[in-house]
């Protein structure tokens, strides 16, 4: 298979407009004859479904929650970037593009990222028109803040609930199309397979999560906006139901999976309290603006933090990265914290956390200023841990947060399966090896509101509706496959719960395919995961039946897929013999411990093709060319 990203020719600045003027369009009167399935109702899915409905296509939108409004996008806190330059501080489309490419450590496609930056402004316009209550200045203009170490203020926000407000904006646009009859919603449905006819994606098969019925849906195109796969680590900042199943089943049908090992670990999360933990809560990164990160200088120092004198404290970020200090990028800060704990300097009951101390800031600015800035975060922390950050330092620890990898897509967001598109976090396209803060929301909405609605017409115009029904053999085959899997899962009836396996997988992934990876660990991870997979199909206990509401069964299918995905992540990490962004291979670092890229051999996207569960997948490389930005080494010293 030859990977062709189909990037339009011509200068970067005109590629998108040129693409738009050259693609084929569907005649307005014919649009309603097309049926499009959108799987997912997060920012990517809801925006796409609403906009496609507005354009006149018939749309069905699916999600596994009880309501489309609950997609995981709802929990994004910090904000959304846009190159509006409302602050007149030198921002531009080019600068946002540049920051994103550099932040991604030169592993993203220039053309896609430029388009993203170009569309960012229109996203804000759209959201405001829907009634999203962004923060404002006294004069009534939109307010901005600087986020994640950016040198300009380009982040728009709605208190600490930006994701919620953006999603409710999309959701209202979606409900408007439900009202007009253009979009039908199918909640509590889990897509379990993509159906292919003559090599094209022509439908999906879902499990109705209330009745257990396996349902078939035929269509002219399928858009996947099913989110990321951080929950492969079991504990992450993602919602507990987030999973990789939809994307994984498409991978098994021939869609390539790109850069699976590119994951982002967020430095400021609440530490794990015990084995019963179900997720890790993210604390806004803004806390690092005023908090200082430290551990005791002596291993196992059990004194209460306030009794440890300055001279016995190691402010390790300030020490190692004097220029950026506590604001060092996410990957660097996360790695430094894990290293401190692995070496025995960690604090708290488990020894797996570091202090984030506000004492100095409180002293300098006073309680009130700190309360104004972080009051709600302090309260949330206090509630969860029973410790008051005004009286003692917070304890934080890194947690898996975002996955840059995903289904490989070309410039039009089509996967390697014709008629199957991937958008939002489910695709791999824009963030390279590391995503910048406030850029995921931007990408989800760009894909959903502006990219897909335009690019899909080029495909649909060539592939006219042909009346394909769900009685086609391909649907029957797919349903049979799913029924078989469901009954084998229920039939094992072993002694360990699905959660036991997920927990164990998470442990392997965190230890060996987490923040710092090496050849030995990755090789072990692969065999550990294979052994886990074998054990799974012999020892898992699911319980209940298919014909009922059965959460354990839902999770059982997802964990089966996570185990396979975990193995692919380890293989990808092993193959990529360099360090870049969130992928840190211990063998490849500079003399002072920084990521060392190998542009000679790895300036590429690694896209994997499924060859069978027990077979080595085939690697395809898409070489990345940097025509507008020179390759350079990141430095945060």
């Amino acid at each position: 298979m030859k990977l062709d990203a189909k990037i339009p020719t011509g200068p970067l600045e005109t590629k998108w407009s040129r693409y738009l003027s050259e693609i084929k369009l569907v005649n307005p009167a014919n649009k309603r004859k097309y049926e499009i399935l959108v799987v997912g109702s997060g920012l990517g899915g809801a925006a796409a479904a609403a906009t496609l409905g507005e354009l006149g296509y018939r749309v069905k939108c699916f999600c596994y929650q009880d309501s489309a409004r609950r997609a995981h996008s709802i929990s994004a806190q910090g904000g959304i970037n846009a190159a509006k330059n409302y602050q007149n501080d030198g921002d531009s489309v080019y600068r946002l593009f540049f920051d994103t490419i550099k932040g991604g450590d030169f592993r993203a496609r220039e053309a896609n990222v430029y388009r993203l930056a170009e569309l960012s402004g229109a996203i804000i316009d759209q959201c405001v028109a829907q009634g999203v209550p962004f923060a404002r200045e006294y004069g009534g203009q939109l307010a901005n803040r600087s986020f994640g170490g950016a040198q300009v203020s380009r982040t728009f926000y709605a208190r600490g609930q930006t994701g919620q407000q953006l999603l409710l904006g999309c959701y209202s646009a979606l409900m408007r199309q439900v009202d007009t009859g253009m979009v039908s919603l199918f909640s509590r449905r889990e897509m379990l397979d993509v159906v292919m006819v003559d090599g094209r994606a022509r439908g999906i098969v879902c499990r109705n999560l209330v009745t257990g019925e396996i349902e078939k849906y035929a269509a002219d195109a399928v858009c996947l906006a099913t989110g990321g796969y951080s929950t492969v680590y079991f504990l992450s900042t993602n919602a507990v139901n987030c999973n990789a199943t939809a994307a994984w089943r498409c991978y098994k049908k021939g869609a390539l999976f790109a850069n699976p090992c590119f994951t982002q670990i967020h430095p400021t999360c609440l530490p794990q309290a015990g084995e019963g933990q179900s997720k890790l809560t993210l604390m806004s990164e803004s806390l690092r603006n005023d908090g200082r990160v430290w551990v005791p200088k002596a291993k196992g120092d059990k004194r209460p933090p306030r009794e440890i004198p300055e001279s016995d404290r190691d402010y390790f970020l300030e020490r190692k990265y004097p220029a950026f200090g506590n604001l060092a990028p996410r990957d660097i800060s996360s790695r430094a914290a894990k290293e401190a704990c692995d070496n025995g300097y960690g604090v708290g009951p488990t020894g797996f956390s570091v202090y984030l101390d506000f004492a100095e800031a409180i002293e300098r600015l006073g309680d009130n200023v700190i309360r104004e800035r972080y009051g709600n975060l302090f309260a949330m922390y206090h509630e969860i841990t029973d410790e008051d950050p005004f009286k003692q330092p917070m304890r934080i620890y890194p947690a898996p947060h975002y996955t840059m990898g995903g289904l490989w897509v070309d410039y039009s967001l089509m996967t390697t399966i014709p008629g199957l598109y991937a958008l939002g976090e489910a695709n791999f396209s824009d963030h390279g090896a590391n995503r910048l803060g406030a850029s995921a929301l931007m990408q989800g909405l760009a894909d959903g509101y502006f990219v897909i609605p335009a690019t899909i017409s080029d495909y649909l115009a060539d592939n006219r509706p042909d009346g394909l029904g769900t009685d086609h053999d391909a649907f029957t085959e797919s349903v049979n496959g799913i029924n078989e899997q469901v009954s084998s899962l229920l039939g094992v009836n072993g002694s360990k719960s699905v959660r036991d396996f997920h927990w164990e997988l998470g442990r392997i992934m965190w230890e060996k395919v987490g923040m710092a990876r090496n050849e030995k660990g990755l090789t072990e991870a692969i065999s550990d995961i294979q052994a886990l997979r074998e054990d799974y199909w012999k020892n898992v206990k699911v319980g209940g039946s298919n014909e009922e509401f059965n959460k354990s069964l839902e999770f059982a299918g997802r964990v089966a897929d996570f185990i396979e995905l975990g193995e692919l992540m380890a293989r990808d990490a092993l193959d990529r013999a360099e360090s870049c962004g969130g992928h840190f291979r211990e063998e490849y670092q500079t003399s002072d411990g920084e990521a060392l890229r190998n542009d000679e051999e790895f300036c590429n996207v690694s896209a994997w093709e499924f060859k069978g569960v027990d077979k080595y997948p085939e690697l395809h490389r898409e070489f990345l060319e940097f025509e507008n930005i020179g390759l350079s080494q990141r430095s945060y010293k």
Partner: protein
Amino acid sequence: MKYQIKVWRQKNPDDTGKFETYTVEDVIPEMSFLEMLDLLNEQLIKRGESPVEFDSDCREGICGTCGIVIDGMAHGPKRACTACELRMRNFDEGATITVEPFRARGFPVIKDLVVDRCAFERIMAAGGYASVNTGSAPDANTMLIPKYIAEKAMDSAACIGCGACVAACPNGSASLFVSAKVTQLSLLPQGTPERGRRAVRMVEQMDREGFGNCSNHAECEAACPKSISIENIARMRREYMKGALSD
């Protein structure tokens, strides 16, 4: 720590349902209420019994998926806190804790603690939006909105759609939920052109779904995990009157 959990078991919508009591051990104070239920379910699955089904997703109080009645209170005893945020340290060691689904005519039980809240979706489809097609919006800063208005709109927009207001209301009214959306959009200029029609349609849809009327008990405000104020309901009534009269 150890607790007795008295929980509602109902196999399906047609089952009459009953309480069962289980003992849960090894609970730690930092655990959330839902993690305690996870622990119970692990024990049940391993004993070959069917786990207690309940809904949850974000587990940090923002998605509105979780929603159960704990000791007679929607989301439990702590104010401004969802069930997923509630920590076990709020319960005395050894206590018997009663857990039930949200009960309301508009929210039929699916299984155990899981209810069907699709009625909210249908109410939203009856006008809970500002009509604007993608791509047709003017530059965002051409419309100036005073800060205090934006903040007020945000107070209402903070609703997570969990349905605790319905479960807490003696009449099973959805007024707090509906009024929060009506208020958000009627405060903002973007929502103004459709405000009358929106209020009328959403309120009528709420009635059609079998939710009761508001008779000012204010239980909804007390139960709301986002502290949405009943002032919203007063505004909704005004909007409804204006809308109905101008029709």
